[in-house]
């Protein structure tokens, strides 16, 4: 919204104050100012002059040679405007002056000397009308500087509409002026209003509010014999500076009042609209609005009708059939308060937001209806003497807001602010802002003004805002809180998540990435992955993103593919949320997971797989101090390799999966490179307690290592964790460690060398005395398919 300091200046005396600084203060006390525009600065030396003669240019159809009377003498001017006429009064830029930043000098135009320039409104910057010269119809002596008559010099500032959503009172200049008056501690001047009681004896307008739940107040007034067609120039300038193109006097007038008071008004042509009903219709129908567009009206949209013929969409836009025409001289003026939520819903459904609807959405003060009519009539009468009011001010006030009264005391303010704002300052601020203040020492009872009471100010905390914003946050002394400090411990899952990231980044040189909580069906398709039908987003931007992700892996695989030019080998991981369908209560089964994918061009699949395995071992071992078993399973997802899919099991709990990619997925990424991945569920991981670390006194005696080699029929079936368990059971406590030393995979034979370490806490062992133990191990392992190979 654009606001004019001249307009605000009608109601607050700014004399002696720096207006630009005031606008900055407005940002700090009321709402953020986005931009400041200084108007009129680049135009000066423009006077009122008369065109004394017009001759056509000998070589140009467009140009005219004029003699212009500047009040003192006739000067030669070359002019290209189509509407030049002898006797016309124009805005004439004199030599040495400036128009829109262009200096005016003596110039030769098409062979003729020109001593100045006749200007259009657009050239003067007061309109976008560039169709011809600005014809001055006001009675002004020739030679008068137009700036002494027209308010071209102004400072306009722009406030983001969003920052005013909670302040319906700030949608017009008068409400803004109240803020400035409070900030500057100067009085707010009253509005000039017409006395509507004068017309109480006249007949009422027929107003019938049927939809009383969607209307607060509907008022109407009929006026006749309006002769003026064009708005006063100063009114046009203000409207233009504030972003509204002047149309004609009647349309401008309703806009002007809306921009001054924030109250939208609508003028119906009284020849077509003589009475009013406010209602909704059960059936859908088409209605042509005054912008010439056909709109679909449904059963929830509030309509203004006249004799049940729709004439306007309430609070949004009038109808084409009843709009003001060039020959309109009688009006039915609407000034009403509609329900803000209803108006907003209507605009959303229609896809049509207007200056009026934007204001209604904010919940306007119904008290404004009457003020706006009185204000409009005052301006009308001032500018068109013969206007006749032909009806009573008709007022259907169907719903009232309750008066809001708030009690509080200074202590409450002190506690909320943490500083000392005096009771006098509190009283002064609230009074200036329009609150009714009753004060008894430090105790206050305030009545919220109607223009703040529709939703904005309802509780004590709202009063705090009023007091502090005017006091100025820059003036606050700041202080720490005196509350007791308590030790802060991170939740187990969070600190474990951090450590997982550290391990993958520092030990495995992997890269953390982020993606989205939904599956990307298109990217999955490129990899040959079917996107599982999971919980759906009903308003996803594209159907490709409608299903929430079940696993972290597919996106990571896509990222791996997209990064192939990055390096020969890299790993990616993400910690993010997934949803595994719905729980019994209908809510999403949401799980945070760590997904990690390894990619390498110059490593074998086996080696890379083991690297992924090691990462899992390190995460579990480092954080939980536990061992992991990998249970071979069927593929749980279509991107897992059916022969190489494992469940990651810790203490009997499955906490995730370690797998190789399905061949076609692998090929879609890179036929030659190796890929391996794992995924860990954080809640499952963190549900496991950290095993205590126990110190074991090392034996003072040396260990004896014995390497034994076994033939394995099927290496993939050997579970080394079982080998360790079996050997320990067979050999007893003396066997302290079992390590795999080597694997030999020759033609038709696979051999496995295992190192068994024996140690005693009491004495040095001899090799001979361990023979029974190694024999027992050999016997036990043969049952597991490991046949001792005689060396």
């Amino acid at each position, binding site marked *: 919204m654009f606001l004019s300091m001249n307009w605000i200046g009608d109601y607050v005396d700014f004399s002696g104050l720096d207006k630009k600084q005031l606008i900055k203060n407005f940002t700090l006390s009321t709402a953020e100012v986005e931009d400041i525009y200084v108007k009129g600065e680049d135009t000066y030396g423009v006077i009122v002059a008369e065109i004394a003669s017009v001759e056509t240019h000998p070589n140009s159809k467009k140009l005219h040679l004029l003699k212009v009377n500047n009040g003192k003498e006739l000067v030669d001017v070359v002019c290209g405007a189509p509407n030049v006429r002898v006797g016309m009064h124009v805005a004439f830029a004199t030599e040495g002056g400036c128009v829109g930043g262009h200096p005016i000098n003596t110039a030769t135009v098409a062979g003729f000397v020109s001593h100045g320039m006749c200007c259009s409104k657009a050239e003067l910057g007061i309109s976008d009308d560039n169709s011809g010269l600005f014809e001055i119809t006001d009675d002004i002596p020739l030679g008068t500087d137009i700036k002494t008559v027209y308010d071209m010099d102004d400072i306009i500032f722009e406030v983001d509409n969003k920052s005013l959503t909670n302040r319906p009172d700030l949608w017009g200049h008068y409400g803004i002026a109240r803020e400035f008056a409070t900030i500057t501690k100067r009085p707010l001047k009253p509005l000039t209003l017409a006395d509507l009681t004068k017309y109480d004896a006249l007949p009422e307008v027929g107003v019938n509010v049927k939809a009383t739940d969607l209307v607060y107040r509907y008022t109407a007034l009929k006026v006749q014999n309006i002769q003026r067609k064009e708005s006063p120039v100063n009114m046009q300038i203000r409207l233009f500076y504030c972003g509204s193109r002047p149309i004609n006097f009647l349309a401008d007038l309703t806009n002007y009042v809306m921009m001054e008071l924030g109250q939208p008004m609508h003028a119906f042509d009284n020849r077509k609209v003589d009475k009013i009903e406010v209602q909704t219709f059960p059936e859908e129908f088409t209605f042509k609005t005054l912008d010439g567009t056909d709109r679909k009206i449904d059963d929830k949209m509030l309509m203004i009708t006249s004799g049940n013929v729709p004439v306007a969409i309430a609070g949004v836009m009038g109808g084409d059939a009843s709009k003001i025409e060039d020959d309109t001289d009688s009006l039915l003026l609407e000034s009403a308060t509609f329900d803000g939520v209803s108006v907003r819903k209507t605009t959303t459904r229609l896809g049509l937001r207007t200056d009026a609807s934007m204001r209604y959405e904010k919940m306007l003060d119904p008290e404004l209806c009457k003020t706006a009519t009185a204000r409009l009539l005052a301006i009308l009468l001032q500018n068109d003497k013969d206007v006749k009011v032909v009806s009573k001010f008709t007022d259907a006030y169907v719903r009232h807001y309750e008066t809001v009264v708030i009690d509080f005391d200074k202590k409450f303010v002190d506690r909320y602010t943490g500083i000392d704002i005096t009771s006098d300052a509190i009283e002064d601020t609230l009074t200036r802002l329009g609150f009714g203040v009753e004060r008894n020492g430090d105790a206050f009872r305030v009545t919220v003004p109607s223009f703040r009471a529709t939703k904005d100010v309802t509780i004590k905390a709202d009063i705090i805002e009023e007091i502090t914003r005017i006091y100025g946050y820059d003036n606050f002394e700041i202080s720490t809180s005196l509350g007791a400090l308590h030790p802060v411990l991170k939740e187990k899952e969070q600190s474990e998540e951090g450590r997982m990231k550290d391990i993958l980044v520092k030990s495995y040189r992997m890269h953390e990435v*982020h993606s989205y909580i939904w599956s990307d069906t298109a990217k999955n398709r490129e990899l040959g992955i079917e996107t599982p039908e999971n919980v759906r987003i009903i308003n996803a931007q594209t159907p490709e993103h409608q299903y929430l992700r079940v696993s972290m892996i597919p996106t990571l695989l896509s990222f791996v593919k997209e990064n192939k030019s990055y390096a020969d080998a890299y790993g990616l991981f993400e910690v993010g949320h997934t949803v595994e369908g719905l729980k019994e209560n209908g809510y999403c089964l949401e799980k945070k997971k760590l997904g990690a994918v390894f990619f390498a061009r110059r490593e074998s699949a086996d080696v890379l797989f083991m690297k992924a395995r090691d990462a899992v071992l390190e995460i579990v071992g480092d954080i939980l101090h536990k061992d992991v078993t990998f249970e071979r399973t069927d593929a749980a997802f279509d991107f897992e390799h059916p022969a190489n899919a494992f469940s990651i099991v810790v203490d009997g709990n499955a906490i995730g999966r370690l797998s190789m990619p399905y061949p076609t997925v692998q090929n879609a990424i890179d036929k030659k490179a190796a890929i391996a991945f794992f995924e860990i569920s954080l809640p499952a991981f963190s549900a496991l307690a950290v095993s205590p670390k126990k110190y074991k006194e090392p034996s003072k005696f040396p260990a004896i290592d014995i390497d034994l080699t076994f033939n394995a029929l099927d290496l993939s079936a050997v579970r080394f964790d079982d080998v360790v368990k079996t050997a320990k059971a067979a050999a007893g406590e003396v066997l302290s460690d079992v390590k795999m030393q080597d694997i030999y995979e020759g033609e038709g034979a696979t051999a496995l060398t295992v190192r068994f370490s024996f140690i005693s806490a009491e004495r040095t062992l001899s090799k001979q005395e361990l023979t029974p133990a190694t024999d027992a191990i050999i016997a036990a392992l043969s049952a597991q398919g490991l046949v001792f190979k005689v060396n």
Partner: protein
Amino acid sequence: MKEKIEALKLRFEEELKTAATEEAIEALRIAFLGKKGAVAELMTGLRDVADKREAGQLINEFKTAVETELSAAAAALKEAALKAEIRSAKKLNPSLLAKREFGSYHPITLATREVEEVFAGMGFTVEDYAEVVDDYECFEALNIPKHHPARDMQDTYYLENGQLLKTQTSAAQNAIMKKYGAPLRAIFPGRCFRNESTDACHENTFFQMEGMMIDENISISNLIYFMKTMLSEVFKRDIKVRLRPGFFPFVEPGFELDINCLICGGVGCPSCKNSGWLELCPCGMIHPNVLKAGGIDTEKYTGFAFGLGLTRLAMMKYGVKDIRDFNSGNLKSLSQFESL
């Protein structure tokens, strides 16, 4: 005897000159000091000498001289060998074949850790929360009425089961208040979702960090203090903050917090639209309705809350110009964030 010793001395000096290896020196030692060496021979010859005392002394002097010279020669030889070894050692060059291979954290992780550390130091607990929430948590409990525009479909991703993707980290306020009660100091970073089209400045998925402090007599003055302290720590310099009125249904009064522009220092530049200030985070005193919904006694406690755009903070901190880089998975950008 004396002549004999002199002759031996001369011979020793001659031979020592040509002894260029450890072996030659050892041979010389054996020849002179060995069991059957020249000195031993002299000792044997002592029997036939009249003044045994003088001759013995001369022999001993000779022996000592030989020993000293031999060990000096041996030491010199070792020294020369060591020098030769050093001279001929291969010279290594650390500038060659250097591989910079580090892992990397997501910039959001780094920014989060940094902010978390600052707040942990001020006694704030760090909380985690779901990304899928319900209408009550995201709106109702935050004093956002039924027909508020924030609930519109164009802003919020709704799920078919009636839940939604949280549009703001404030969605965790209610649960955290219920979990801890008052007094309370907590921050909760998290992923948020807004149903909007993306460009260099907009993402539908981004990170915020919410913070709350609730205690007896928490004031606006405290809020400014904590925000200023926290931001100065995060940006590692003294940050000027200013509050402006701002409207958010879950706070009253509500503020927009600006910091002095980090690029121009506050004098005005294109980044701050010449205002000298950058809008950084909405904050305010927690609305009594929100405290009540969280089961907190509003007569006894007040509190403040703030929402920090972590993604924006990371962009400012690291100079990332396109917000879409964060979720791109592109290692050419992301691998640069190796550590804090």
